[in-house]
């Protein structure tokens, strides 16, 4: 191979390399935007698929992604093709950047020999790395984020156990506590449990429906009312017994009669109530003769009262109970006799003040402005005293003060007088006439001077 051919080949190889670099750069340039768009769309689709599809597999997405990637690559190549440079154009680029005075073009034409290949080749360009790497890195980040971001499948959310309403738990807890303590009759508890179970047997989607919540609220209110009633009747009966025991010889017949009536009434309500105390306690109360309490052993009576107090306490401690009738330690209040005599007057108030706990009876009442715009407070009818600071500018007939009060008379005691000197000088006199006239007096004066 001759020297000329050797130089020719070397330059042409270099030109091929340069043209490949330029063409690759064009392809990457045209690829960047579609790649970013495809990555963005792909990331969205992956996220949606991971969210929506129950059996999401990476096999088909990988194949589809590869096909899309190849399509984008081919499309970009087709778009970049118009800008591709041939090795001859790359020769021109090299001779221009290396300031070779177009020796390569002349040599390619056969006019001059090929020049020696320089040690350092310069095609006048270098990679613009930020521009080159940004699109693929951004695409990778987008796809990586769509793959790695924790996204829960929509079907997984349906499999999660639905938490039952808190009211059911409270009622169940009450049933367990009352059963454990044997406070009330078992029939009531079984019936209550059956009703709760009926509510539980609904579809979980219906647990928080309006009808279910309404039924739950009604059940809870009924249970709460029964608990309150039982607790109150037990307490009344216990207090009546206590009063009868302690004050049997001291109170009048009328008062004694009232205490007996109260005990009998409480006992009657205990027997008639839906929620009855346990049968043993009820039997003891039935067999008790309140008029002959003195015949009973004090220990027996105390034991009976203690069991009534305990039952009332158990009722009050239930989730459904409010425990308001008991003191902190569960004992009856010291004024139990007065309470007994004045009972029935505060029960409705107690129930009315229980707002704000949610449920169907929640809320403090009508919303403000429900019946129209609320008129502002105008404070009409109030009288304010007016005082003139500079009386020299006032004219005859000016209203100096409008005051419905007493005269501002100095009530300082006049001191001892000696030799015409007065210790304390009164501030009445003309001041009263000029500054402290009542409106009626001013009117009378005006009429007089007309």
């Amino acid at each position, binding site marked *: 191979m001759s020297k000329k051919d050797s130089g020719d080949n070397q330059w042409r190889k270099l030109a091929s390399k340069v043209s490949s670099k*330029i063409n690759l*750069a*064009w392809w*990457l*340039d045209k690829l*960047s935007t579609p790649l970013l768009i495809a990555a963005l769309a792909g990331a969205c689709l992956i996220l949606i698929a991971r969210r929506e599809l129950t059996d999401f597999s990476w096999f088909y997405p990988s194949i589809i992604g590869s096909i899309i990637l190849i399509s984008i690559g081919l499309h970009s190549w087709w778009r*970049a093709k118009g*800008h591709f*440079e041939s090795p001859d*154009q790359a020769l*021109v*680029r090299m001779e*221009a*950047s*290396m*300031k070779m*005075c*177009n*020796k390569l*073009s*002349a040599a390619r*034409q056969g*006019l*001059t020999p090929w020049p020696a290949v*320089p040690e*350092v080749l*310069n095609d*006048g*360009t*270098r*990679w*613009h790395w930020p*521009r*080159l790497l940004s699109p693929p890195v951004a695409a990778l980040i987008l796809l990586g984020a769509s793959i790695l971001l924790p996204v829960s499948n929509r079907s997984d959310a349906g499999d999660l156990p639905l938490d039952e309403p808190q009211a059911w738990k409270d009622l169940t807890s009450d049933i367990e506590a009352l059963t454990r303590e044997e406070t009330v009759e078992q029939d009531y508890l079984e019936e209550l449990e059956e009703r709760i179970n009926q509510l539980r047997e609904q579809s979980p989607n219906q647990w928080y429906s309006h009808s279910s919540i309404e039924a739950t609220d009604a059940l809870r209110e009924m249970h709460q009312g029964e608990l309150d009633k039982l607790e109150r009747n037990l307490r009344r009966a216990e207090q009546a017994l206590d009063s009868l025991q302690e004050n049997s010889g001291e109170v009048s017949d009328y008062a004694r009669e009232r205490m007996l009536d109260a005990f009998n009434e409480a006992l009657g309500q205990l027997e008639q109530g839906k929620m009855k105390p346990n049968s043993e306690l009820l039997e003891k109360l039935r067999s008790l003769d309140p008029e002959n309490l003195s015949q009973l052993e004090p220990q027996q009576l105390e034991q009976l009262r203690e069991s009534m107090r305990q039952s009332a306490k158990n009722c009050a401690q239930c989730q459904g109970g409010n425990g308001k009738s008991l003191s902190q330690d569960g004992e009856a209040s010291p004024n139990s006799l007065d309470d007994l005599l004045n009972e029935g007057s505060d029960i409705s108030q107690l129930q009315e003040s229980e707002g704000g706990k949610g449920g169907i009876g929640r809320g403090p009442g009508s919303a403000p402005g429900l019946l129209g715009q609320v008129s502002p407070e105008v404070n009409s009818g109030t009288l304010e005293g007016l005082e003139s600071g500079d009386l020299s500018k006032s004219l005859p007939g000016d209203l100096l003060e409008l005051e419905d009060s007493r005269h501002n008379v100095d009530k300082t005691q006049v001191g001892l007088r000696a030799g015409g000197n007065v210790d304390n000088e009164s501030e009445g006199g003309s001041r009263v006439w000029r500054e402290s006239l009542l409106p009626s007096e001013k009117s009378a004066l005006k009429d007089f001077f007309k």
Partner: protein
Amino acid sequence: MDHASETEVTDAGKHVRSLSNALQQVLFGQEELIQLVLTGILARGHILLEGLPGLGKTELVKGLSRILQLETRRIQFTPDLLPGDITGNPVLQEKDGKRQFVFQPGPLFTNLVLADEINRASPKTQSALLESMQERRVTVLGETHQLPSPFFVLATQNPIELEGTYPLPEAQLDRFLFKLEITRNDVDTLERIVTDRDLGSEPEVNPIMEATTLIDLLALVRRIYLPDVVANYIARLVDATHPGQSDSAGKIKFGASPRAALSLAAAAKARALMNERTHASFEDVKFIASSVLRHRIILDYNARVEGLTSNEIISLLLEEIPFQAGKNPRTLQQSAPS
């Protein structure tokens, strides 16, 4: 057409170098100007020299005529100069008993015309040069007379003293290959002038080249190879001078003509010969671009207000238009040339 060989251009280069050296004995410190003048001559172009009085414009032309042993005429352009005064007039003569008009050639009928202070002549007289400069012939009373070959017009004009002058029209300017601006001398050059020259005496210059040799050189320039890529660069450069064709042309009102492209190609070839190359190059075009284009583009009002000159616009154009036709992708950036 066969292209010039390396031997031919090497021999030609020697002649051109001797010409250049001789001219440098006439005009001190103006090496680039001398290079451009010789480039213009070799490209068969007419040259407009613009500079203040006393910078050696006339001296350069006279020295060139003596070195080249060309027949030279000097025309001092004045406002009362008539076209017939430069082209020649028909004179009524009696011949063989008959009276007839006989054409009396004017000063244009020479090889090298020194048109001194060309902008002082009236437009009518200036336009009398149009045909002679472009087609190298003169038509008087319907009769066309061929000018001698080679024929060059080297005109001078003064950029100041515009009172009583007639600026050359664009058509006239376009016929000049180069418009060269003669700058003042530096201190060293001035010292050399003071030392070597006497006021009123012309420098002694020996003839270097015969006219036939010059004609051979002119023929050789035409055989210099102009690569396609260089021709493409010239075309893109001239096209970019037109408004809307490039960013730099935003303040140009009228761009350069196709004659400018031809002038660029011819001048690039001439410069390649002077550099003993068988082919023109991008660098040749870049070197002569300002001299070829500066009088061919007309700036708009905004450019004049901003104080932009043609030279500055052309510099911007040369920076904007790359040598190679294709542009770079955004994934590549321009590296520093080696």
